């Protein structure tokens, strides 16, 4: 119904918290999770006489984002005051950029479709409000003054899936640029989605803004619900009210937040406390030359250089540190074909940390590839490597960790079968679960030195052979 008679017109505004050490206009720390109101000073608290001083790193990070999004970087941009009154905004204005943002006219590609990026600009974050049980409002100003970039897309997005994909890709880029943790659950990535529908060829319909979407998968749901809601309204002769809506994750719906009858008048004017940001080509080139590779380019390279599948390349680029660990270790591989083993090993041990010694990591991967050790042993060794450096090949030798196969494996299998005759019966009865149990037993008995696939093969041979 949706795609036949209506098309969705979706634009997304994302706010990304930059992980600089200090805030955008003062030297307060930006660490997440501190005790309320312990990371504040007269400047970010809007005390009389306090003045902002721009943190240069914020500009650098924003330029990185702009370049990665194919934007033009403005040689001249300035700060503007966005004036409005709200308890989490100490000065009753937010220092942002209105007229002349730092980055403009960019784009990214989602599945071959180009989505325009109108602008990327820098601004300061506000504090956080909490409502306690007695109905009082408490304000934590720690977040006030944390640097943000706001990334505004053109309304080029057309489907709920594309909306999610857009935010997901954006998130990935920011992560790989090293400028943000982009954790939606911590608020370092926020997305507001503007949705309208129209008959193809007609002019844009009234749009609504959806806020409070707390995860990427909810974006898809929110957009889906909202477009359907709008279409239903139009089909039944109603009009769309321009309003701000909240996503309700309990029932995957959107509900009105507050009516946006008249746009807020922010009385924007250039902030007289801050000079304009003036950049030259040399400065921007320096940043360009030190840009880390983007995840899409990294994936292309993995597919081309190592012959990885698209799926493996995607999984490997789940985080910059996995890539880094892989790239570093891959340089030490003598056998390129072992790269896939290396990738899978690193992914299997990734828990937020990766082993730090690339040479030894590579050695482990090669030993698994050669079949000298089982992949389970490889995984265990790499985990050990995380806690301290040691020589893997030597360790394998001295601790006798080589893979158990052939007669020795058969022996182990028989031992496990004898110890658990019930399970054997279950296997004969067709129960796959029992097979897994017995394999588990073999792995345990061999201290992980058996190859799981081979163990299964021998086990089944033995069980069904007996009969």
């Amino acid at each position, binding site marked *: 119904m949706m795609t036949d008679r209506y098309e969705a017109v979706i634009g997304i505004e994302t706010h990304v918290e930059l992980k600089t050490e200090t805030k955008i206009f003062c030297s307060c720390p930006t660490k997440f999770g501190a005790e309320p109101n312990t990371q504040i000073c007269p400047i970010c608290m*809007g005390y009389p*006489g306090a003045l902002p001083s721009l943190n240069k790193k914020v500009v650098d990070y924003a330029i990185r984002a702009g370049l990665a999004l194919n934007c033009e970087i403005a040689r001249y941009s300035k700060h503007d005051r966005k*004036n409005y*009154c709200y308890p989490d905004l100490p000065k009753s204005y937010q220092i942002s950029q209105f007229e002349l943002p730092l980055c403009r006219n960019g784009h990214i590609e989602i599945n071959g479709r180009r989505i325009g990026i109108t602008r990327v600009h820098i601004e300061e974050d506000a504090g956080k409000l909490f409502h306690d049980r007695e109905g009082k409002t408490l304000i934590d100003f720690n977040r006030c003054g944390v640097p943000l970039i706001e990334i505004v897309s053109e309304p080029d997005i057309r489907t709920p899936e594309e909306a999610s994909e857009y935010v997901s890709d954006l998130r990935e880029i920011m992560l790989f640029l090293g400028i943000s943790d982009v954790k939606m659950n911590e608020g370092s990535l926020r997305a507001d989605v503007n949705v309208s529908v129209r008959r193809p060829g007609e002019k844009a319909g009234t749009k609504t803004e959806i806020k409070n979407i707390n995860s990427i998968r909810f974006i898809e749901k929110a957009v889906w619900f909202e477009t359907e809601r709008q279409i239903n309204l139009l089909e039944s002769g109603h009009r769309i009210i321009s309003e701000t809506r909240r996503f309700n994750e309990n029932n995957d719906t959107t509900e009105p937040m507050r009516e946006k009858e008249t746009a807020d008048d922010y*009385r924007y004017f250039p902030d007289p406390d801050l000079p304009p940001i003036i950049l030259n080509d040399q400065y921007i080139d320096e940043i360009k030359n030190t840009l880390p590779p983007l995840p899409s380019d990294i994936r292309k390279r993995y597919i081309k250089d190592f012959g990885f599948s698209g799926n493996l390349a995607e999984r490997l680029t789940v985080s910059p540190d996995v890539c880094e660990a892989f790239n570093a270790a891959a340089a030490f591989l003598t056998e390129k074909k072992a790269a896939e083993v290396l990738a899978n090993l690193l992914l299997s041990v990734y828990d937020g940390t990766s082993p730090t010694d690339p040479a030894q990591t590579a050695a482990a991967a090669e030993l698994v590839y050669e079949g000298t050790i089982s992949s389970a042993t490889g995984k265990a060794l790499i985990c050990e490597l995380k806690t301290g450096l040691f020589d893997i090949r030597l360790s394998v030798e001295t601790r006798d960790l080589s893979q158990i196969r052939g007669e020795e494996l058969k022996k182990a299998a028989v031992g496990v079968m004898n110890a658990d005759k019930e399970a054997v019966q279950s296997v004969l009865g067709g129960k796959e679960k029992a097979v897994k149990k017995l394999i588990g037993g073999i792995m345990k008995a061999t201290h992980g030195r058996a190859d799981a696939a081979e163990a299964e093969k021998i086990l089944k041979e033995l069980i069904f052979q007996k009969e």
Partner: protein
Amino acid sequence: MTLKTISEKLAVKELSPVELVAEALDKAEKDGFGCYISTVDRDRALKSAVESEDRYISKKPLSPLDGIPFAVKDNILVSGMRMTCGSRMLEDFTAPYDASAVKRLTDAGCVVIGKTNLDEFGMGSSTENSAFFPTRNPRYPDRVPGGSSGGSAAAVSAGHVPFALGSDTGGSVRQPAAFCGICGLKPTYGSVSRYGLTGFASSLDVIGILADDPEGCSTVYDIISGKDEFDATSHDLNDAEAIPRTFAVCEELYSAADEDQRRAVDECSVILQELGFRRVSVSLSSIQYSIPAYYIISSAEASSNLARFDGIRYGKRHEEASDSTDDLVSKSRGEYLGIEVKRRTLLGCYALSAGQREDWYQKAMTARKMIAADFASAFKNCGIIIAPTAPSVPPVAGRTNIPPVEIYRSDIMTVPASLAGIPAVSIPFETQDHLPTGVQIMSSKDGDKELLSVSQKIYSMRKDS
């Protein structure tokens, strides 16, 4: 005693910092003219004075001004001291940090005596807009001391302290200096840090100095001027070019003043010629837009700068329970801000609002650029421009029901230099009726030091000096 004299006597130990500070404290306590809103803790001040004396004894003073007492306008933060900005909104507010200008002075050994009275948030020209009490003019008792730095001007004029800090947005240091018979310096915009000066109009505000003579202003300026990392709009004085030996009278302002003021300007002209300055003509036709441009720009910036006063994090909060933030904030502002502040912030909001911004704010900014350009162009042909500091002698104190715009118009002499960001010194003269008047000496940006030097010469060559 001038600041220079005091400094010299301290250096040879003819005077003691403890004497000086104790005397200043005594005078502050009596405060016959209502100069001070609050005074420093006596023991703390005397302790600083004793430390200063020790430094003189060991021949290691921190600066030529070590041990000298001074007053600070009560919109400039002094750590640990109350700061009201002349407003009930900040009646109970204690400053959590030192303004950079204050810190430079206390690091140089100067001792803060008290915080002086002002028109609320710097808005006014007589100090009668203070929420607490008016200040009296020490030498001309029936007249207003001027504003908004009336308290600082009176403190120096009455001899309580040899110098005081004020703030000048549209004339608030120069005009009260003239009205109280002393000197006032409005430095080049950005040459003194604004960090710790409660913002009124950020693109116009400058911390200024009041002292008996230009030389006194100059010595203090040496200490407080220069780039500050906390003020992104501050800068070091560039190696300013020497001021050419030519001067002009700003005819546009001259013709708008009373006869008394013009006579003072004439006297100043004669002195400059005696000093070897050649008189030339300049045209500053955009000055006609000064008052509207100033009041629109300053009100617009003020409407934004004062919005932080909402009673939420500090300042007075209305006692009645509110069911929404908007309600709480408007009640607090309504109760604790004065009428002139409300008038200007409303005007400022209007000038910036959608649909009005182009007609008012943008036009005012354009007019400002024209005024600045006129001055820049004029200074290509002359080194100094002089004009009256005020259109007439100070009004009588206690006037009521004066239409605000009439009061605004009286700033005509001082706002052009503010809009252009150039330095200006007011030198006191007296009329034939022994009433105070002042002449402004202006130069192009960053010419402050030499401007003060020329001003000192003029000062010492006045008829009644």
